[in-house]
C-alpha cells in the first residue's frame, strides 16, 4: 500500500482558510512615501546602524551591519533620505532602533544583469549570502550564512526545502512556487552547492497539488536532480523537525540541529531570495507577504519592501472590513498579534492577518483529558508543564518535563477544551526558568 509521507506523532488539523488569497497573483506594492526599516530583521543581535539622520541611501545599500555570530546585514529597500532613527516595537514585541526613510519619487530601474553562478566557487557564493543579508524567510529569520557555513567535521546528505506552508491562511509560499517556482528551485541548487548536499528534496503539503505538479514539471524540463515530495496535510509539518521526519524519516534529538542528522532545511522563500541574491545580485530588501483573513476587504499576496507599514498594506488591500478582533503578523498558529497598524514588516513577515472575533469560551480548570499530550508533536506533557509553571515550579517544568524542547507550535492550546493559555504559559515559563 502506498502511504503518503508525514510525521507520525501528534499534530492537528486546523481549518485551511487559504481560500481568501490562494488565487491572488503576487502584486508589487506601489512604493509608500515612508518606510520604517528596523535594525532587528533577524534572529540574534540587531545590526549596527551605518547611517545617521539626514543621510541619503540608495536601493540595496548596506545600512545595518551584522554584529556577533548570529546576526545579518540590513539593506535599504529604496533610494531615499533618512528622516530619523527611532525606537519602534515590532509585531513580535521586540523593541529596537529603526530607520525612518523618506522614499524618493524617482527610483532607479531594476538591473537585468544575470550572473552565471555555476562556475563560481562555493566560498564566493556563501559570501553573497552574507553580504546580501539573507535570512530564513519561514518566520524564524535565522541568518542563512550561519546555517550554510557547514563545520569541517560535518557533512550534508540532504538539503530539504520547506514548501509546506502548514499555517492556515498563508499563501505567500504557495504563490511563490506557482509563479517563481523555477527561480526558487534554482536557488535550492545554489544552496545545495554551497553546503555540498548530495540530495535535494522539496516537501510540499498535498493541499497545494498544483504547486507540486508545477515544480515537478520544472524539474523534469530542466533535468535538475531535485525530488518533489507531496506530504499529507498536518500541522506543524513546516517545523524542521517534523519536516525531516516526514521527508527523510530522521528524528532530530532534543537540543540538536538538522545538521546532526545530516540535513539542512531552508524555506522555499529563502531559496528564492538566494537566487535573487546570486543571480540578480539583489540584497534581501523585499518579500512576499500574504495580507489575508476574514477582516481584509481584498486579500492579496504582495511583494513589499521590508519596512512597509502595515497600514500601507491594509490600505492597498482596501482596508479592514467587518468586525476585526486581532491583527496577526505571521500565521494564526504561531504568529504574533499586534495592535498598532504603524508597525513595520520585517524579513520574517510571511503574512498579515485580520481575524474576526472568536467565540469567547470560558476557561475552566484542566480536566486532564490528555488531548494536549496526544497532539504534542514532540511528545511532551503540556498539561503537566502548565500545572508546574503556574505553581512556579520552573525547574520541574524545565528539567523533568523538557519545557525547553517545546517549540510553541500551539497544537496543545488549539485543542484544549478547558481553553487554558498553554503556549502563553510556556513562553512565560521559559523566560522565568532561564532567569533562575
Amino acid at each position, binding site marked *: 500500500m502506498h502511504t503518503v509521507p508525514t510525521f507520525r506523532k501528534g499534530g492537528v488539523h*486546523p481549518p485551511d482558510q487559504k481560500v481568501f488569497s490562494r488565487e491572488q497573483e503576487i502584486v508589487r506594492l506601489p512604493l509608500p512615501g515612508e518606510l520604517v526599516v528596523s535594525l532587528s530583521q533577524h534572529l540574534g543581535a540587531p545590526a549596527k546602524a551605518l547611517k545617521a539622520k539626514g543621510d541619503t541611501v540608495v536601493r540595496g545599500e548596506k545600512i545595518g551591519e551584522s554584529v556577533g555570530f548570529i546576526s545579518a546585514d540590513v539593506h535599504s529597500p529604496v533610494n531615499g533620505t533618512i528622516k530619523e532613527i527611532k525606537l519602534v516595537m515590532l509585531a513580535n514585541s521586540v523593541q529596537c532602533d529603526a530607520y525612518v526613510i523618506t522614499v524618493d519619487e524617482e527610483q532607479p530601474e531594476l538591473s537585468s544583469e544575470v550572473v552565471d553562478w555555476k562556475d563560481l566557487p562555493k566560498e564566493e557564493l556563501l559570501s553573497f549570502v552574507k553580504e546580501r543579508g539573507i535570512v530564513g524567510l519561514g518566520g524564524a529569520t535565522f541568518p542563512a550564512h550561519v546555517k550554510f557555513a557547514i563545520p569541517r567535521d560535518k557533512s550534508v546528505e540532504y538539503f530539504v526545502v520547506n514548501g509546506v506552508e502548514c499555517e492556515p491562511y498563508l499563501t505567500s509560499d504557495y504563490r511563490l512556487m506557482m509563479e517563481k517556482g523555477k527561480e526558487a528551485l534554482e536557488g535550492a541548487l545554489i544552496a545545495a552547492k554551497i553546503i555540498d548536499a548530495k540530495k535535494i528534496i522539496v516537501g510540499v503539503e498535498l493541499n497545494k497539488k498544483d504547486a507540486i505538479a508545477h515544480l515537478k514539471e520544472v524539474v523534469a524540463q530542466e533535468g535538475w536532480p531535485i525530488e518533489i515530495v507531496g506530504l499529507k496535510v498536518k500541522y506543524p509539518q513546516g517545523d524542521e523537525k517534523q519536516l525531516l521526519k516526514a521527508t527523510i524519516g530522521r528524528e532530530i534529538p532534543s537540543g540538536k540541529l538538522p545538521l546532526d542528522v545530516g540535513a539542512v532545511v531552508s524555506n522555499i522563500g529563502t531559496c528564492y531570495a538566494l537566487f535573487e541574491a546570486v543571480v540578480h545580485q539583489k540584497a534581501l530588501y523585499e518579500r512576499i507577504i500574504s495580507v489575508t483573513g476574514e477582516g481584509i476587504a481584498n486579500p492579496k499576496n504582495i511583494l513589499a519592501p521590508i519596512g512597509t507599514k502595515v497600514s500601507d498594506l491594509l490600505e492597498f488591500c482596501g482596508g*479592514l472590513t467587518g468586525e476585526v478582533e486581532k491583527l496577526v503578523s505571521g500565521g494564526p498558529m504561531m504568529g504574533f498579534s*499586534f495592535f498598532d497598524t504603524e508597525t513595520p514588516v520585517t524579513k520574517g513577515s510571511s503574512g498579515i492577518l485580520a481575524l474576526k472575533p472568536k467565540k469567547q469560551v470560558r476557561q475552566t480548570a484542566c*480536566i486532564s*483529558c490528555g*488531548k494536549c499530550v496526544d497532539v504534542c508533536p514532540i511528545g511532551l*506533557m503540556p498539561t503537566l508543564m502548565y500545572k508546574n509553571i503556574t505553581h512556579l515550579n520552573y525547574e520541574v517544568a524545565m528539567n523533568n518535563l523538557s519545557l525547553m524542547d517545546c517549540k510553541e507550535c500551539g497544537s496543545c492550546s488549539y485543542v*484544549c477544551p*478547558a481553553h487554558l493559555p498553554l503556549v502563553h504559559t510556556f513562553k512565560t515559563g521559559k523566560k522565568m526558568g532561564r532567569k533562575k
Partner: protein
Amino acid sequence: MNEQPTIRVSSSPHLHDKSSTSNIMWHVSLALLPATIWGIYLFGLYSLVIIVVSMATAALTEFLLGKINKECTIWDGSAVLTGLLVGLNMPPSVPIFIPIVASFFAIFVAKWTFGGLGANWANPALSGRVFVFFSFTTYMSSFTTPRTLLSAMPDTLSGATPLGFVKTAIAGGASGASNDLLAQAGYPATQLAQKLGMSLGINPYTIDSFLGNIAGSIGEVSALLLLIGGIYLLIRKIITWHIPVTYLLSSAILNWIFGGIPAGLGSFSGTFFPSMLSGGLIFGALFMATDYVTSPLSAKGKIIYGLGCGFFTFLFRSFGSMPEAVSVSILLMNILTPTIDRYIRPRKFGEKNLLKKKEAVA
C-alpha cells in the same frame, strides 16, 4: 482608516477547535441518553425520579459550594453529568434519600474537598455509589424485575441480578458454567432471547444481558445501548479506544482462562462474552474508567490503566467475596493514576525507542 477598531492582543495560537469543557460534558450526557431512556422504560417512572433527584442534588451541591468559593462552575456541566452517572448507578427501587446522599457525597467529598473540577483523584460518581453501597447495602442490592421479564420471572428470584445470582449459587456450593446455573434455577429469559438463542445457537441469557432484559441498576442493563453511546463518544473523539478496549478484553480473557476455577470447571472454561456483558462492566469501562480527570494522560498510561482495571475486576469477581468488583477496581486504578502519569511518558521526539535499543544491544 479613520476609526481604529478594538484590537485584542494575546499569545499565539489565534485559532481554536470548537471543543470546550461543557461541550464534552453534554456530549457524554447525550451518549448516556439511550441507556437512560431504556432504564426508565424497563423499571418505570420512579427511575426517572431517581435520576432527576441525583442530578438536581449534584447541581445544587456544586452551586452552593461555588457560592462559598465565590465562583460559579455549574455551567461546565460536570456536576450534572456526575449526578446523571450516580442516578444511572442506582437500583430502580432504591429509597429516594440514597441517591441524594450519593450525589452529595460525590460532589462534596470526592470532588470539592480536593479542589473541584480537575483536582479530584477519585471518580466522584463512583465514589458516591461505593459510599452508599457499603452504607446501605440491603437497599443497594435489591433489584426490581424488569418490565420485559415480568411474565416469566418467578417471585422467588426477584431481586437478583444474573451475576449476583450466580455468585450466590457458587458460594452455596454449586458448580457449573454460569449460564447453566441460571438455567438450572429457572432464571427467566425473554421469549425473544429464547427464539434468537435457538436459531443462533447462543445462550438466551447472553442475548438478554446484551439487549438489556436483566435486573440491575437503572442505566447499566443494556450493553447494546451503552455500546452505542460509547461508539458515539469514540467517533466524536471524546474518548479514545485505549481504556475501554483494554479493560473489556483483559477482564474477559482472564475470565475465560481462570474464571471457571471457582465453579470447579478448571482453566480455559470461563465465559468470554457473557462476562463482559454482566454487571456494570460495560458501563464502567465506557463511562466510568474513561473519566478524564482520574485516568492517565498518555495513550501508554491509558493502556496500563485499562489492563489494571481488567485484572482487578476479574480478581474481585472470581475470587473476591465482595460485590462491586467494577467500581472498586476503577477506584483502585484511580489511586494509581498519578503514579502512572509520573512514570509512563510518551516517547520524546528524537529519543530512541526503548525496545529498539534492546534489540540493538542483543
